């Protein structure tokens, strides 16, 4: 075997094989160090493999890997082009930072007897998300989606050690997530009935632009099912509670990856499976995706302003940001698609950093309500600085990744003759100024309560991963070569496949 030929399967099989081993490791011995170090090493290896895949795809071209040596369309194919290589790198990169970050935070938040199970579940969740992204087989998407979802429900429920409401949040998420997955499978079933194949590229060939009610219904089921998973407005109601009551580390990981992967699947099905030239697609863009995206951008951002819990606020903000991504897709132009992909990547960086800062505050102050952030700039200067930089990035201030996203979205809007869309994007950005600004004001201008006990800055094991993510927010804001160029090429390839 050569490493290069087996590279595409390593990000999937490695965490799947090692997660059960983590289950067998002692949870309480050495303060839970053993499963932590072990899974961290796995996450780094996976990231290295994903980076190698991205490099190979960017320089050589798409990779196709046949599982069990069965050739597609009969067998399952892993098909990696630029679009999913970018998402793979994001998911595994966030994973590689979240795993080392998790140790201190998890020890204080979950039942110490569950530490080994926690790392195993997080690893399986990552494997599932990577699998959804990497596969070129439509049904395989569903299988991996369930792998990631089931482990996510367990991870969210582990927050019950701090707050019992995590149990109802996890149950809600389970019900909604299952409905979403069911819709997705119904859609797949209809497409399978219409084409007799489950390979994404083959479905596209078999459809040959054909349009009938069954395909339309299948397409609608898939978009709605995945929209539920992506927390597309108005199907986002499971998300604020799940993110607020999950252990902080889990929120950081999910916010940066899970919804992005769902958005990626929507993009993949629209362009690679159904095809943008499909007669139904423009109608779906104009009458379904765009209005819901705009409603999400405004409604969720307004709701975020009135939250008195920082994690809930960030969750509502995520709903709004998903709106931006779908809005970009709904332009139906190559530039819009590229802007969406850029924002997908960048938003993972910002939300990951913001939730990591929230995790640091949770560790030292023990709360994620807004009051806990009063005077934080003096009490935990580095964490506060990370929150401020990532927050500015979320707003879209120049020199950060947020600015690149907004700029790309704006120019895509104007170039496709939608000046009103540009106006809406800017207007909703002001809402982000309000909700992020509110927390920054609390941190910088307010004094901590007089009787507040003195606290230390977060430990280095948390500060370093958070610092790397914040630095990535600035680095990719200055050097757009990687993200924007790759996203443009990915969008070109996706659109090209749609012609």
């Amino acid at each position, binding site marked *: *075997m050569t490493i290069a030929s*087996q590279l595409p*399967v390593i990000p999937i*099989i490695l965490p*799947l*094989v090692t997660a*059960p*081993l983590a*289950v*067998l490791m002692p949870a309480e011995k050495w303060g839970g160090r053993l499963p932590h170090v072990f899974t961290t090493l796995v996450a780094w290896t996976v990231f290295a493999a994903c980076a190698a895949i991205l490099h190979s795809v960017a320089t050589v071209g798409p990779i196709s*890997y*046949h*599982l*069990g*040596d069965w050739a597609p369309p009969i067998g399952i194919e892993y098909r990696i082009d630029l679009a999913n290589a970018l998402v793979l790198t994001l998911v595994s990169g966030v994973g590689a930072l979240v795993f080392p970050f998790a140790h201190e935070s998890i020890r204080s938040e979950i039942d110490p007897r569950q530490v080994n199970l926690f790392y195993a579940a997080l690893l399986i969740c990552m494997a599932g998300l990577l699998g959804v992204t990497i596969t070129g087989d439509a049904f395989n998407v569903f299988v991996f989606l369930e792998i990631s979802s089931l482990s996510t429900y367990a991870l969210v429920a582990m927050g019950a050690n701090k707050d*019992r409401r995590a149990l109802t949040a996890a149950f809600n998420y389970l019900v909604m997530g299952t409905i979403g997955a069911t819709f997705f499978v119904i859609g797949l079933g209809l497409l399978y009935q219409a084409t007799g194949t489950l390979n994404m590229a083959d479905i596209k060939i078999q459809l040959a632009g054909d349009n009938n009610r069954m395909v339309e219904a299948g397409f609608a089921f898939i978009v709605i099912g995945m929209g539920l998973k992506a927390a597309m407005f108005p199907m986002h109601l499971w998300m604020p509670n799940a993110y607020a009551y999950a252990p902080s580390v889990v929120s950081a990981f999910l916010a940066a990856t899970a919804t992005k992967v769902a958005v990626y699947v929507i993009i993949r099905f629209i362009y690679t499976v159904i095809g943008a030239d499909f007669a139904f697609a423009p109608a779906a863009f104009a009458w379904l995706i765009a209005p819901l995206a705009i409603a999400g951008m405004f409604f969720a951002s307004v709701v975020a302003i009135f939250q008195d819990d920082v994690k809930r606020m960030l969750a509502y903000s995520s709903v709004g940001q998903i709106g931006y991504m779908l809005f970009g897709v709904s332009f139906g132009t190559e530039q819009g698609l590229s802007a969406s992909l850029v924002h997908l990547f960048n938003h993972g960086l910002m939300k990951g950093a913001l939730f990591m800062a929230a995790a640091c505050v949770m560790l030292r102050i023990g709360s994620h309500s807004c009051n806990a952030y009063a005077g934080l700039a003096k009490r935990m200067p580095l964490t506060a600085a990370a929150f401020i930089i990532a927050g500015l990035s979320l707003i879209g201030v120049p020199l950060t990744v947020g600015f690149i996203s907004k700029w790309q979205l704006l120019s895509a809007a104007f170039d496709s003759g939608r000046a009103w869309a540009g106006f809406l994007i800017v207007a909703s950005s002001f809402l982000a100024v309000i909700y992020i600004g509110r927390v920054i004001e609390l941190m910088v201008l307010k004094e901590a309560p007089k009787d507040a006990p003195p606290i230390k800055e977060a430990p280095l094991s948390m500060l370093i991963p958070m610092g790397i993510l914040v630095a990535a927010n600035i680095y990719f804001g200055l050097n757009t070569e990687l993200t924007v160029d790759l996203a443009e090429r990915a969008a070109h390839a996706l659109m090209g496949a749609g012609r």
Partner: protein
Amino acid sequence: MSIEHLILRVVIKIMFAPILLFALYVQFHGDYGPGGGFQAGVIFAVAFILHALIMGLDETKRVLPVGVLKVLMVVGFLFYAGTGVATMLLGGNLLGYDAIDPASTHHAGQHYGILLVEFGVGMAVASTMLVIFYHFAGREPEIRDEDW
């Protein structure tokens, strides 16, 4: 030694071994007829669930403690995944069973591969079923107020 439910106790003692045997039949005949690891695992677990229903959960836990089941779950899964990794190491793709016996003219590797994988599935399913059953059966009958 109590003689409560004497008939049930005797019946389960007679039934226990045939149920396990049937599970193994479904397991290893799965390549040729209906069956396979999932069904076999469930049937295998049923024998122990019956045992627990009649003899009491504590008796069954003495035979098969939860700790052992956890290990069996992991080992079963690793059988499956390990077969896939082994085919990778032998030069095929993941789960490309032909790599197990490349010289064979009638794809004997496919047969060995699926046998190993199904064995892993059976082991994992049986132990997972039992762990789920233990957890449900071992729960406190009433939910206390402070648990809400």
